[in-house]
């Protein structure tokens, strides 16, 4: 009797055992279960299965020794072996993959330099490509996707992701993305932004982000310049923080202590609003530095004799000794604080479109753009209603007005870049104001006409300059590939023919053949 009862239950035991094992497997794959729980389930399964076996012992014995089981276990073994071999072959196939690019332009073959860079990557690098999927040019996005995929074939330390700006605005904000088509290379906390998709730009960004060299900006002291350690409204401590967040080191340097040259690891020198003049010896150091490909960000405030006049003239820039009054661009009715909204084309201003920058008390300059030894570019200018007030007393008395002949009339250039030519070319940015980077002004938020709160672009201007200084040499040069386009030229009529023939004619022919065959068989 008991035997009979047990026999009935045997199947249930078996089913429970199976269920327990299936549950174990599923939970294992979900991956977040403690091992003890999994072992417990599996163990219970074993117990129930043992019960099943013992109660149905005779039946089990028959099945196991049957011909079907013998064949079946044979088949199972063969299958396992076979799958193992196939798996191994494919595994080796991935390891030792061979790829051949048949495109006419070899668009999908990377240059040996890139391949070497990729194979030498030691730490993981993430690439995030931010595109507005609805608006971007699909061909260039596709080309980038293809190219990055090629890159990932040579190393497993590179990951990339195409991100839709419209779908993930928060991510874009986190990464400070402003442009459609921004590509960010990220290694740990280091980031490098690229806006072009050719192989040279991408590989250079990769090299830069993987290098441990941190660009260092040396800020001069000893002439009453604004200080990096000063956290009052006039200081530059906020700027220093911002630079460090972007992986730049900002350090003070007293030029008077230099015996030979500016430190070799200097990415750029920054002069931030001195109130006393520089010695000729100090200026000579700077000149030597620039002659060997140095970079300089010069901010000289109005009303200060800085000793840089001759120095600047040699580079094609003349600083006027004035204070710009701009009733049209002035901020909040203060004409001495021009707000700039449009910029000339330059790497220092290229992503400032739509951003405002303001300068509390700026002197104008003359940029000799026809200079042949250096490329001098004006960055931005005041309005046509502005003038450069040279009568400093009238400024104090608040009676400043345009004095024809003495004061220069707007629009006046307010900032300029100077770039040398050839190898080891110097780069310089000169602006007639240093207050725009002071803590008090860096943190200012404004309102656009539509009532949106915005931060001004003052800090970004400096960061752009720093980037321009640091990103000087392309660490490697890779010749660009010609564009891979094979255009199709069709008239409207031809297009109609194509449509008709592929949609109706071709299938029609097949059906006719079929009909003929069918008729022939009848």
């Amino acid at each position: 009797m008991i035997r009979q009862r047990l026999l009935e239950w045997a199947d249930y035991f078996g089913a429970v055992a199976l269920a327990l094992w299936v549950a174990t497997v599923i939970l294992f794959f979900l991956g977040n279960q403690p091992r003890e729980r999994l072992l417990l389930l599996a163990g219970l399964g074993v117990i129930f299965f043992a019960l099943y076996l013992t109660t149905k012992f005779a039946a089990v014995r028959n099945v196991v020794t049957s011909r079907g089981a013998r064949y079946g276990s044979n088949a199972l073994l063969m299958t396992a072996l076979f799958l193992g071999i196939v798996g191994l072959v494919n595994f080796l196939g991935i390891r030792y993959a061979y790829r051949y690019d048949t495109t006419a332009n070899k668009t999908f073959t990377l240059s040996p330099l890139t391949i070497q860079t990729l194979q030498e990557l030691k730490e993981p690098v993430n690439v995030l490509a931010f595109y507005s999927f609805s608006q971007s040019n699909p061909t260039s996005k596709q080309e980038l996707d293809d190219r990055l995929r090629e890159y990932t074939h040579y190393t497993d330390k590179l990951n990339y992701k195409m991100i839709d700006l419209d779908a993930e605005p928060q991510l874009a904000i986190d990464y400070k993305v402003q442009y459609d088509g921004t590509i960010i290379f990220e290694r740990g906390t280091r980031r490098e932004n690229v806006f072009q998709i050719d192989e040279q730009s991408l590989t250079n960004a990769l090299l830069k982000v993987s290098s441990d060299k941190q660009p260092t900006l040396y800020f001069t002291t000893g002439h009453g310049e604004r200080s990096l350690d000063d956290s009052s409204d006039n200081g530059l401590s906020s700027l220093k923080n911002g630079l460090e967040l972007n992986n730049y080191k900002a350090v003070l340097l007293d030029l008077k202590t230099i015996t030979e040259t500016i430190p070799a690891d200097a990415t750029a020198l920054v002069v931030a609003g001195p109130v006393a003049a520089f010695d000729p010896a100090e200026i000579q150091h700077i000149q030597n530095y620039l002659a060997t490909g140095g970079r300089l960000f010069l901010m000289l405030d109005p009303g200060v004799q800085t000793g840089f006049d001759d120095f600047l003239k040699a580079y094609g820039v003349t600083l006027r000794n004035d204070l710009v009054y701009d009733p049209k661009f002035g901020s909040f009715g203060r004409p001495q604080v021009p707000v700039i909204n449009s910029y000339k084309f330059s790497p220092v201003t290229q992503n400032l479109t739509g951003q405002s920058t303001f300068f509390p008390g700026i002197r104008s300059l003359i940029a000799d753009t026809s200079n042949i030894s250096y490329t001098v570019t004006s960055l931005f200018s005041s309005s046509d209603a502005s003038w450069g007030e040279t009568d400093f007393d009238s400024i104090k008395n608040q009676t400043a007005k345009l004095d024809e002949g003495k004061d220069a009339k707007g629009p006046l250039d307010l900032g300029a870049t100077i770039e040398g030519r050839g190898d080891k070319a110097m780069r310089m940015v000169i602006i007639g104001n240093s207050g725009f980077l002071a803590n008090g002004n860096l943190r200012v938020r404004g309102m656009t006409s539509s009532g949106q709160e915005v931060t001004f672009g003052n800090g970004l201007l400096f960061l752009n300059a720093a980037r321009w200084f640091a990103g000087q040499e392309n660490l490697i040069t890779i010749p660009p590939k010609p564009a891979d386009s094979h255009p199709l030229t069709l008239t409207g009529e031809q297009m109609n023919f194509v449509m008709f023939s592929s949609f109706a004619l071709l299938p029609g022919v097949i059906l006719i053949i079929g009909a003929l065959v069918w008729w022939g068989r009848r």
Partner: protein
Amino acid sequence: MRNVWTITWRELRAYFASPLAYVLSAGFLALAGVFFSFDIYFSREASMRNLLVTIVFIFLLLAPALTMRLLAEEQRMGTLELLLTAPLHDWQVVVGKFLGSLILYLVMFILPMVYYVLILVVFGPPDYGPLATGFLGLILMGAAFLAVGVFASSLTQNQVIAAVVSMGILIVMWVADAFTNLIGTGLVSDVLNFIAIPRHYPDFFRGVINSTDILYALSVVVVSLFFATQALQTRRWR
């Protein structure tokens, strides 16, 4: 080997005699024709790259229809036993039928698409490398889908079930990498990522011949036909 060809030839005659192949081919070509025309119209590029992706997917859905009858019908009509008792190995039957479906695929689906190539050549010129590798990819992927279909057909007497099962398997293979971010990294997720079909044709369609992808397609064919053979063999000792 001659045995295999006998089966293949027999299968081809059956295919060409029935309306199924013609109807499927005409339908496929009409659909492909529409996509081809629109692709050309909007891109003005002499390239089939975007089109091929769509075609691969269409064929994924068609392959079950082409293969469902291959072994299922024989089982239903009872002619399978006859075949198996003939001096034929099981694998010869399986491979023969597979080759039959493959040749049909080549003749009725791939060959007509040469017309598109002609159009591109006349109005182009196109980049010939990617076109050639694109077709190679299409052929290999198609072979893989058909092989899966043959396997599904070996499991049952019911053609509809065969079609459903093969479509199920193919769709699972298509989306195999969708859940790997739940599973994390490790062997399982690597295997799933590898099985996913959409990882193995982009290179072909771009113009890159990748040995891994070729190996993948051949593996799917070999594994599917192996399992189909196993399925037939179980009949011997049932």
